[in-house]
């Protein structure tokens, strides 16, 4: 590390310490914090109340297994449904917008406004859109779907137009020289050329939306978050913890499935096919258990 780098890191470190101290202000507030947490954990959080996996008393459960009428199942299923619909709507809307935003497919006079529109949709997190749409549509899943779709368009659109801008120039030039129109160049060349990335982004977005589906429920936009918020307001923290554990496990499974699917559509070496240990264990331990071909080669060297 040269002197300039050393001073840069030292300056960054000192700046972080200063800002942290400035933001916290009174460190005395921390005294007793740990004890409070221990008491809260012992008396309210632990053990988790697994009643969330039992059938609700109303409406009467007609399913074969009680769990299908439980808060955890219904809430999680609703979150996944919201995420699925929002991702599908977001993809369909984002695709033409990303063609307009890609500088190699559209003139700058079109690309720049399209990018501004996408940036605008992306600049507000899904939860803020959710607050807005809960005001418009009322509490429920519709607000959640619309809010998540908005955010998805902004986020997915950016990923998509960057993928399209990264495609090889030769097919585009050949198409332009032949006299293909813009729609043909986009539909027949740019989209198929970037298809692997588009599919990968789509799966990633679904996974992301399932995770965020939990958050938007907190402001009344449907899904499992709505139950979380209800338990928090009622002080039923043990049920909240049980629900959080369920969410964690479901998100883990969806992450795994999504990564496995994405690894099949990505270029070689882009995303490695995951193993269970790579999800549960720290990276160092996981890579020791499952050396990748690249690691193995390095070891041989």
């Amino acid at each position, binding site marked *: 590390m040269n002197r300039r780098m050393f001073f840069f890191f030292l300056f960054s470190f000192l700046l972080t310490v200063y800002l942290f101290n400035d933001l916290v202000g009174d460190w005395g507030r921390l005294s007793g914090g740990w004890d409070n947490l221990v008491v809260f954990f012992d008396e309210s959080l632990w053990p988790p109340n697994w009643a969330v996996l039992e059938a609700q008393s109303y409406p009467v459960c007609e399913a074969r297994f009680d769990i299908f009428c439980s808060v955890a199942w219904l809430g999680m299923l609703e979150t996944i449904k919201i995420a699925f619909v929002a991702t599908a709507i977001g993809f369909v809307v984002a695709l033409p917008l990303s063609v307009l935003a890609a500088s190699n497919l559209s003139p700058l006079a079109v690309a720049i406004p399209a990018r501004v529109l996408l940036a605008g949709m992306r600049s507000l997190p899904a939860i803020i859109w959710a607050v807005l749409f809960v005001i418009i549509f009322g509490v429920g899943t519709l607000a959640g779907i619309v809010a998540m779709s908005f955010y998805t368009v902004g986020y997915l659109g950016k990923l998509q137009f960057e993928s399209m801008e990264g495609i090889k120039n030769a097919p585009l*030039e*050949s198409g332009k020289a*032949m006299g*293909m129109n813009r729609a043909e160049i986009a*539909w027949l060349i740019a989209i198929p050329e970037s298809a692997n990335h588009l599919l990968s982004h789509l799966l990633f977005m679904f996974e992301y939306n399932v995770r965020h589906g939990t958050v938007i429920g907190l402001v009344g936009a449907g899904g499992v978050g709505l139950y979380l918020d209800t338990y928090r307001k009622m002080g039923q923290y043990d049920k909240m913890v049980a629900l959080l554990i369920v969410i964690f496990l479901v998100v883990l499974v969806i992450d795994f499935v999504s990564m496995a699917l994405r690894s099949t559509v990505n270029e070689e070496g882009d995303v490695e096919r995951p193993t269970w240990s790579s999800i549960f264990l720290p990276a160092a331990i996981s890579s020791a258990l499952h050396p990748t071909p690249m690691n193995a080669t390095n070891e041989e060297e």
Partner: protein
Amino acid sequence: MDEVIAHLHDVSIGYDEVLIKDINIEISAGDVIAVLGPSGIGKTTLLRTIAGLVRPLTGEIELAVDSRGGLGYIPQRLGLVGNLTVQANVEMGARVRTSTWRPVFFPLPQEFMKDVKEAMSDLGIDHLAQQPVRILSGGQQRRVATAKSVAQRPKILLADEFLGELDDDNVDVVMQTVKKTIAAQHSALIMVEHHEELAKEVANRIWRISDHRLIEELER
């Protein structure tokens, strides 16, 4: 007299600096022109300028061809869509012969599909029709790029080293098919070629680029 399909008047080409200057040349129906010269001299830039992808620095290029489908271009990297099948790539050539207002989702009319199948058959790639292009060998991909241009039936075909990676038999197949198309359509082929002997064998005009000038060497 043969129909003139392109005319370059006092054209200079290049990017930041001039690569070739004072080009005054006509291209007529039936011409098979080989462009020769060392690497980096401006051969590809000449093709890209005629294709309308690069503006000439000075002068004017007149093309007596339709803006849609009148000009075919096989770049050095072939310009195929690797994720699409061979047939879908060849169909792109035929598609530019249809109206620009034809919705992109609509399949090609039957008569155009017949041309697509014929082009694939002439180039010996009909058995690969449903294979994605990315899995084909370099030589097979060159034949796909040629079939796409044959199905397009352009008035001028610009081909940048499209005979590279082909063995002698395939060079014959490709050149025969291209020449058949040129004769049938009264069109012209301008090809950049590194192998001088091959160029002299297949072309009836040779343009050599040397010292920033384009010199017509052979006209027969």
